[in-house]
């Protein structure tokens, strides 16, 4: 069963994510960006806008810890958000909430792609 680590400070969005993922029979793990030892999961979903810091910075730290397939979450992503996330070696930015089927498809597709090691 694939696992997803959700790092988001907005409870409602977490609830939505859990509902969507449970519908896929995927395992949901929750965590806090401030935690030092986070469990490794197949996919990591991280909020772009955090109360302290931002998703880009946290994602870089997570990558150093060995996390792969990191998606950023935003309710109103701009064009540059996705471009910048991909430049940093992340999967991209997901709009949340978004049409459910598309959201699930993207996650499944992300899981199917063999993840390459980061350039640096």
């Amino acid at each position, binding site marked *: 069963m694939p696992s997803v680590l959700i790092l988001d400070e907005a409870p409602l969005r977490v609830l939505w994510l859990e509902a969507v993922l449970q519908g896929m029979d995927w395992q949901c793990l929750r965590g806090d960006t401030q935690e030092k030892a986070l469990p490794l999961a197949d996919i990591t979903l991280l909020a772009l806008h955090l109360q302290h810091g931002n998703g880009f910075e946290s994602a870089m730290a997570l990558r150093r810890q060995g996390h792969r397939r990191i998606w950023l979450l935003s309710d109103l992503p701009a064009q540059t958000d996705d471009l910048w996330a991909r430049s*940093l070696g992340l999967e991209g930015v997901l*709009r949340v909430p*978004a049409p459910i089927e598309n959201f699930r498809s993207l996650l499944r597709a992300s899981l199917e792609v063999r993840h390459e090691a980061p350039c*640096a």
Partner: protein
Amino acid sequence: MKPPVREHGWPVPEEVLWTLLHASMGSCLQLLELWLRTGEQEVYRRAMDLLGRIHACTGFLPAKRLGMFCGQWRELLLKAHAGTQEAALILQAGVRIEHRLAWACGRHGDRLLDLHTLNRLRAACAGQGGSSVSRPPQTPVVSPCFVLALGNAVQRILCSPVSEPNDLSVQGLPVLQVASFWPQLSPTRQGGGAAEVPAVALLSLHQRISACRLGVDAGAHAAGFLCLARRALMEVLLSRWRELVDAVPGQGQMNRDELAGVLACSRVCLRHFAARDTSRSCDRLCELAQNLLNYLQCIFARDLVGERMLMVCLLALERQVLKRGLNPDPAVAEGPAVALLERRIRRFLRARRHRLRESMLGWGAHQRQVQARGLDELQVLLPDLCRVLVQQGRRVPAPFLPDELLYLCSRMCVCVLCLGWGVLYEMLCGVRSLLVLAVEQRLQLTGAYLHCLARLLTRIHRMLQKQDVLEHLLPALRALQMASARVLAGQRHPQSLHQPAHEGGVPVRVDALPVYLTEHLHTLLLAPELLQQAVHTGGTRLDSRACLLELTLLGQGARALAVWRVADLAEGLMEVHRALQIDRASPAPETLALLGEIHQALRACLNHAAARQCVPDVRGPLARLYAWLEAASPLPVSRQSSDVVRLTRALTAGMQALEDALALGNHPQGLPLLRRLLSEQQERCLQLEEELEDAGRVRLGRWRSRLWRVVARCASATDTEVRLSLENDALQLDRRLADALLPVVEQMLEWLIGCSGAQIGQPGVTGNALVKIHLRPRLNQQTLVLALLLESQALPELVVPDGLQSALHWLDASLRLRPGGSGKQVLLLSLPARAPRWDIAAKPL
């Protein structure tokens, strides 16, 4: 007064008869269309009957050629199956007759009925075997070529500028063909696309006929027609879009082919719209709308990423529309038609978003849980957001927005969306867009706006507590909308920030810069890790040339976007990389470690900027960079002199070799060797010449590192944030003058920063401790003018110190102070653009 025409014994004015015939001709054409489509004999008979009457009536009019035309035309129509060419000819002739009737008793009407067409009609009639009494076809089938001819006519109309009356007169024939025949024939063509064609064609016809009837030149109607045509196009476009809004994916009544037709029509309309507005914002608008249509097609084709792309595009389009509303250029703001389009697009977006929302939230069993959680979260968020707004309201005008504001607003958007409060969601999306604009474009949010927003949020909070209805919020919503409009109206006056210009005066597209930068920064993002690896392994894989290029790009881009901290850090790093590149030696591990840390800091700054958050303070990293530069050897001059010595030595050796080669002059292999040596010597001489020429002059860009070191030192000493900009880097000065002038400029900077720093520390002086200095050197014939523009919250009273006075005197320079507006002061340093007088003993500084 023209004599009345008698018909059936009644006196009929000639104009009335023309009008009647014109109307009859229209009916006749319609009947012919119907006959072509259905093949009904009765319809054909009625058409021919009507045509016979028209032909007969022409005898009452002083238009002989019209009568001949009608006769020949009728004869051709009475033939059996018209061939491809005949069908086109029939239409052409019909249209010409229609136009002639529209000209009525105008003097030049007969020019429309040209002899060439008449002769072709006669030839066609003769070619049918001479039988003028043919039976109508039992099953009229429209020839494919006939349809093709019509299609081509449509295409010509759509691809031609409808606004130009001259083209209209040329295109007059297909216009009526299209207007009359296309709607009936269109179902036979794949892709639909009927609605907009009559709109364009009929408008063309209307313009032409009305111009003819009024007896004026068609050109006089051009402006009015342009407006009509565009409005019609917009109407058509928006009606197409409305169909898309109504069509829910998977449940709509449109199939893929129909959708493709609608999209094709929309594209045509957009292309027309774009062709008539050459403004940049319109280009962007149309481009976005085209994308929107593409993405919509993706959705209907069940493309997985289509929906997400659609949302991105919707947001971009909305933003563009918003910007277009802000455009102060009267040439672009075209009045009601564009305003209508903007309003409709917004409505379209709202409707589409509403539908998308429904497809986003499939809560199912979680519905109640979501409602409860959403309300709880909203109760927590509202007071926090109010608090931040009140705090921000006290700081107006504030240079930066707190990061918390965007974060809280973002969370509230999600809550409201999940609770299904559409109006509030739209409002919060608007607020969020405005906040993003405020961050990205330094849009100043007024105190009134923040106050209105806080009041609305307070009401929402009260409403939640009292279980009140949403309608009570409407007055507060309207007030916020008004305040928002005022904020945006304040943006109408473009500031230098939004339209910065290059040295050549070409404005930079600031709105396009973030995407451009994001797409072009690659090496910089990997640099921290590569440099850290290099510390351990000894050799670096960092491409310093690419790094320098990206840093230059970033520095300029960040300055244009007014992200000063990123710009400062990028320029500092650029100086260090440039120094390392000139040195060509592999950098020490300490240098690599320092660079790694600073690159890390730069990436953190970029991440913050990308997330629209406040960029961290970079004074610490900058001070470390300039300390490194201070400790580094003054590279350019020493290297240059050593290079010159090396080249001279090579030249001497070359001369020696030449002498030896000359001794071998009689040897068969001596000549080629001599040629080769001479060519090498020539190259070296040229190089030396360039080096020596360059040695006498120096570019002012060489000053950068020295000046920034001074600034960094003074800034840390006075605890002031200083931003220095040096313009006209490429200006070349005599090396001796530059060497003498540089210490004076350094001293002036120290003096200015020291004075400003002391002033900022004084009680009663508010504002941030930020000093901006712009150094602008200009060479006016024999005089060098250095303008120092000082910007500060607290301008000091400037009294030139004695040391500086004497230095200026030695340089024959004069210093003038000139007020440069609020919070600005200009110091103008003028001096002769020649080397200083060396006869005076001792250097000044």
